[in-house]
């Protein structure tokens, strides 16, 4: 039980700061459009415009903070907000789908967190977003919404059934294979090129002189140095992002948390969990590393709110054991049906023809402009061909017990595990060519707010597709 409260006043600062950055360009436009002699030239104008905007937005945020009141009591959160247009909202415990907290550096300094309470509502803003409440307060709100009956103080604290943490040894591999690596590498190279000019010429001469006997080695050495530097940076980024990762399984929910600078804590209620996904990026596949995600119904409208991280980095062969510990409801299929040989032709066609058309167009254009090496775009065909081959080889489907497992590759290799009771509808699709070849596309749709989502596997053997359909059929 509690009376109406306000959030921490730091919210004003947070909002004003955020607003200021996004409105900076707006202030500059105002400054430019003001007559020059108004506040003493452009600089003066800019300062005045900025101050005015700062004042206005601070005032507005103070008002917004002042009029935002919340109250929580057993099984309910009540919110009253709005400066001119008042809005009240009450959310009941039964409707709460998930509760997350996260905190950026500034919030952490003040011991505050952002608490998001999500409901199954289709409307985008049907949720509570408390952006500056103390950690204790957030815990207490969560507690009030969770407890089915008021829990007495003497009752023991709930013990997780199982928990897993990130293993340190894989962080270096993860850093090397993260998608950011190449971006970071180019950044480092550019920075190096900038700094290079400022190294005193004499020092440089001396260095080159002493090393010039092996000029090739210098080049390789510099490249290697940049590479190692990038690797270290990438590892640091990865550690900052995912350090302290832990996932704990309770009877009815998963508690997942990670991050140092931005601490994330996600609670996934098990009955809202719709699908488990195992991703293997192209770079991570050779090292046997995967990322695991879960699809949760009733999240927000943004992708990252519907799909929650389950494990940032796990070895492929440990996935089985991880699922057994944390999510015994799901399992990796022990055997699955692969695509028929005659589907390969169609996979190759799909992956190469668009690329072939594109390269054809580029080559013709190059030929007309007289660009040398006009055959170079042809090299693109090789990866396209490989991609088609790999897509065909990795496509598989399996139904075991009440679980459908799909494996397919777009670029990353993805394995999706869905329970029969979470599939909203199942479709078999076939174009005329597929029908002539006796092939089908199988597509399973499931709930993922605000709209549905579906995964499909192309060019299955018609009988296998029919078997999946029969498995799903309740007649």
């Amino acid at each position, binding site marked *: 039980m509690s009376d109406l409260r306000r959030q921490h006043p730091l919210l004003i600062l947070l909002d004003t700061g955020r607003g200021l950055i996004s409105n900076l360009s707006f202030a500059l436009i105002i400054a430019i459009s003001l007559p020059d002699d108004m506040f003493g030239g452009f600089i003066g104008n800019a300062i005045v415009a900025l101050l005015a905007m700062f004042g206005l937005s601070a005032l507005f945020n103070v008002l917004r903070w002042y009029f935002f009141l919340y109250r929580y009591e057993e099984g309910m959160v009540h919110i009253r907000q709005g400066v001119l247009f008042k809005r009240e909202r009450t959310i009941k415990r039964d409707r709460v789908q998930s509760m997350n907290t996260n905190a950026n550096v500034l919030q952490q300094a003040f011991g505050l967190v952002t608490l998001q309470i999500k409901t199954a509502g289709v409307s985008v803003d049907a949720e509570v977003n408390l952006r500056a409440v103390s950690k204790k307060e957030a815990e207490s709100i969560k507690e009030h919404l969770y407890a089915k009956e008021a829990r007495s103080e003497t009752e023991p604290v709930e013990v997780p059934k199982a928990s897993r943490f990130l293993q340190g040894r894989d962080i270096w591999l993860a850093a090397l294979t993260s998608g950011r690596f190449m971006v970071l590498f180019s950044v480092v190279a550019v920075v190096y090129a900038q700094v290079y000019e400022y190294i005193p010429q004499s020092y440089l001469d001396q260095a080159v002189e002493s090393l010039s006997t092996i000029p090739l080695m210098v080049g390789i050495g510099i490249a290697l140095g940049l590479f190692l530097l990038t690797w270290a940076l990438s590892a640091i980024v990865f550690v900052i992002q995912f350090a302290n990762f832990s996932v704990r399984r309770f009877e009815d929910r998963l508690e997942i948390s990670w991050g140092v600078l931005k601490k994330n804590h996600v609670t996934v209620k098990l*009955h809202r969990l719709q699908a488990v996904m195992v991703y293997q990026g192209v770079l991570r596949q050779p090292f046997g590393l995967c990322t695991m995600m879960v699809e949760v*119904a009733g999240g927000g409208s943004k992708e990252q709110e519907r799909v929650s991280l389950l494990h940032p980095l796990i070895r492929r062969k440990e996935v089985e054991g991880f699922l057994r510990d944390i999510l015994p409801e799901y399992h990796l299929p022990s055997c699955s049906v692969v695509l028929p040989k005659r589907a390969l032709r169609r996979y190759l066609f799909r992956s190469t023809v668009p690329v072939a058309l594109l390269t054809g167009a580029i080559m013709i254009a190059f030929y007309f402009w007289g660009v040398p090496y006009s055959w170079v775009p042809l090299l693109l065909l090789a990866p396209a061909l490989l991609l088609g081959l790999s897509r065909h080889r990795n496509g598989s489907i399996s139904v075991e017990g009440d679980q459908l497992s799909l494996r397919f590759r777009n670029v990353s290799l993805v394995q999706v595990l869905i329970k029969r*009771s*979470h599939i*909203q*509808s*199942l*479709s*078999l*699709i*076939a*174009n*005329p060519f597929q*029908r*002539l070849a*006796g092939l089908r596309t199988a597509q399973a*749709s*499931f*709930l*993922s707010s605000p*709209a*549905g*989502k*579906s995964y499909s596997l192309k060019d299955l053997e*018609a009988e296998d597709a*029919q078997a999946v*359909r029969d498995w*799903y*059929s*309740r*007649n």
Partner: protein
Amino acid sequence: MLENLRERLRMDNEPKESIDPRARKVWMIGGAIGSAIVLMIVVGFFFLVTIGYGAPDWVGWTAIALGVAYVPWGVFLSPWLRMRFWRYELRENEMEIQHGIFVIKRHLIPMVRVQYVDTEHGPLMRYFGLTTLSISTAATKFAIPALPKQRAEELRGEIATLARVSEEDV
């Protein structure tokens, strides 16, 4: 040989019931209206581009040829194919729907997943006494166009009753 080809172009185990044959008339009328609009656009294009901007004649003629070629497709072929493949079947625990022109899609919707059923009809459909029945799950929505009004209402009632039977968790 031809019979064999037709057999292979069909998806086996088709659902039993076809939709009302008057649907084809509705689609043909719709196709005729669409064709008229397309023809108007290509003729307009012809005058604007070849005469107005002085582009070579063949550009305009190609557009007109494409527009004319669209007419038999829109008015005859596509309504016929649509009618040919539209099937549905209501069973005790599930609904099966098949539709498509080139790409045939067959959906299986368990009754326990059905969230709500609607019937609706546009002016053209209403003139022919036809109704569209749409079935929504939490993630997907399917529509059976052109059912006789009474049949649609029967179906809506049946589905609503069947959908209420079991309460599995979403």
